[in-house]
């Protein structure tokens, strides 16, 4: 179990609580092709660089509404994204930029949406918390905790009934395991053997509250798996190889009729919960330990140790940087949506004007 949690202390000031730090287990030694490894690395870079750009843009006050970044948590979306089939379905949360990208949404589309432009994924009407991309099976980002786990069962069920072989992957946070919908969803999935994979990104915090203070078990997702007859799976969510490997296994299981899985991936967000949060409630040593165990640092070092050249990786970094710059320009060039667009897409007849 790649994490150690010490006893509860410091109730009034979480920043003085004992640190909960990663316990790396090193290269799992998987037999993956060079292309696969470079694919994972590229995806990590894309998610990281785009998220950093999102951060810069909101510091310039260009991002509409609030936004939640997954800096530091990219290996989960990257590992699953690379393992999923193009026609698989994904459900994400308000912290969903990375998941949209890893399911194939364009950088332009994501950035333009954050800026609230017409060329955004949602035509500039959804913003950071509501990204979706129907053509790519990105079934949406949901900002109501827990709700989307029950929704994910529905697309999984539809795939089962249509015998399409598609798997639904549903991402959510540690805090989400304590709302009723999580438990309802797991039971449905288990009873009907639905082709769905629930992925808990355990970043140790439910907003500003350490998850262990408000959860009955140490591992908020994995320790509940047995209640639904599911395997207990805890993985190092900052090790993209391990995420990818687990993803392949549980996706194949679901695809071949073996039913649902619940995966708990341990990770950490390097910044605050949302735009307004500096994240000061966390112990400095804890933040430092996870920053040192950043998924990109981990994978970069691993690839070097495996004989990939520094130039190869730098070339990837630069290429991604160019893409992000181009996407930023494209996004900024987009027009703001027409004000009238707020009256559309409410009812099937094209608008709500008949009621307004």
């Amino acid at each position: 179990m790649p994490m150690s949690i010490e006893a509860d202390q410091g109730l009034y000031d979480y920043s003085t609580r004992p640190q909960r730090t990663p316990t790396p287990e090193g290269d799992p030694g998987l037999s993956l092709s060079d292309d696969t490894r470079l694919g994972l690395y590229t995806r990590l870079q894309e998610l990281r660089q785009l998220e950093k750009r999102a951060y810069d843009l909101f510091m310039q006050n260009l991002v509409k509404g609030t936004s939640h970044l997954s800096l530091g948590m990219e290996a989960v979306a990257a590992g699953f994204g690379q393992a999923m089939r193009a026609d698989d379905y994904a459900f994400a949360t308000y912290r969903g930029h990375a998941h949209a990208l890893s399911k194939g949404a364009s950088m332009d589309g994501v950035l333009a949406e954050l800026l609230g432009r017409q060329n955004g994924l949602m035509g500039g009407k959804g913003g950071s918390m509501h990204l979706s991309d129907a053509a790519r099976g990105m079934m949406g980002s949901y900002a109501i905790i827990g709700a989307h786990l029950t929704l994910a069962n529905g697309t999984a069920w539809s795939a089962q009934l249509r015998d399409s072989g598609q798997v639904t992957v549903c991402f959510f946070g540690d805090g989400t395991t304590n709302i009723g919908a999580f438990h309802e969803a797991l039971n449905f999935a288990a009873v009907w053997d639905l082709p769905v994979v629930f992925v808990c990104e355990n970043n140790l915090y439910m907003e500003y509250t350490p998850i262990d203070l408000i959860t009955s078990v140490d591992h908020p997702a994995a320790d509940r798996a047995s209640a639904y007859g599911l395997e207990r799976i805890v993985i190092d969510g900052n090790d993209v190889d391990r995420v990818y490997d687990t993803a392949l296994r549980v996706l194949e299981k679901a695809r071949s009729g073996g039913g649902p899985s619940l995966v708990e991936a341990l990770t950490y967000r390097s910044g605050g919960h949302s735009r307004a949060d500096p994240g000061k409630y966390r112990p400095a040593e804890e933040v430092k330990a996870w920053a040192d165990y950043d998924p990109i640092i981990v994978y970069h070092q691993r690839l070097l140790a495996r004989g990939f050249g520094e130039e190869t990786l730098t070339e990837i970094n630069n290429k991604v940087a160019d893409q992000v710059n181009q996407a930023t320009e494209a996004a900024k060039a987009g027009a703001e949506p027409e004000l009238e667009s707020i009256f559309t897409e409410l009812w099937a007849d094209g608008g709500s004007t008949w009621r307004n």
Partner: protein
Amino acid sequence: MAELNIAQALNAALSSALEDDRVVLLGEDVGTTGGVFRVTDGLLQKYGPDRVIDTPVAESGIVGAAFGMAVGGMRPIAEMQFMGFSYPAFDQIINHVARIRNRSQGRFTAPLVIRIPYGAGIGAAEHHSESAEAIYVQAPGVKVVVPATPYDAKGMLLAALDDPDPVIFLEPIRLYRSIKQEVPDEAYRVPLGVAAHLRQGRDVSLIGYGSMMREVNAAADILAAEGVSVDVIDLRSLVPFDAEMVIDSAQRTGRVVVVQEAPRSAGFAAEVVAQVQEKALYSLNAPVERVTGYDIVVPLRRAEKHFVPSVARVVAAARRTLEP
């Protein structure tokens, strides 16, 4: 006396409420962080973790537990982070909190307060911006109140806590930090069910509540500067509703504009209009006007400003009632 904004006045009210051992606060991040809007700042440090409780994200669990505490003799105050996050607690609020007195023939009661920040203001669309007060008004058994000033915020929260019935206490997000007012240090009560008569006038009645009071007051200033004699009422309480003050105003001016932020159809303004028609029809000199949000999902930042009724829309509606 201190100059406080609404968030600070609520904090002062909660702090004074916690002097009563029966009062318990519970909600997501209300303890160490002091809540998303910092309304409960410092209370955990002052009253300890048995009284100020950081809960899991689980609105049904929070309201359910508050209900049980109330039935058990405590005076819980539950915080929902935003209006849109109160919906997972619908079952508890509508089916149980609102109905237990009736269902148990008065043997059980649930005198609790559910604080819900509501309305637009942070530009994040949907769940973080909506005004669904009418849904709660449709649940007989709960009271629904909404202060618009720091003074009322403190006095009404303390009154809500004294009330023998459960109270949905709505807090207008846009006004949390926008107005400051002298607020007494000591505990005082502003009775629930009594509207505030902010301005006496003869020509037209402007009636609003909560987040819209800033626009209503600004519209009244503009109209007054043009020589219109404006009557202004802040309803403060939707349940119980101060029909008397509203009907009296309608009878005196004969012209009524009702303002709400919520979408138009079947909103609380429609209820006010209906009561005016029922009880003051023969005093009216013009059709009653409603100024409301649109029947749409609350949109993102720039468009949000378009959704929220503007001062200009309120003024225009008043002028329509004044046309000869």
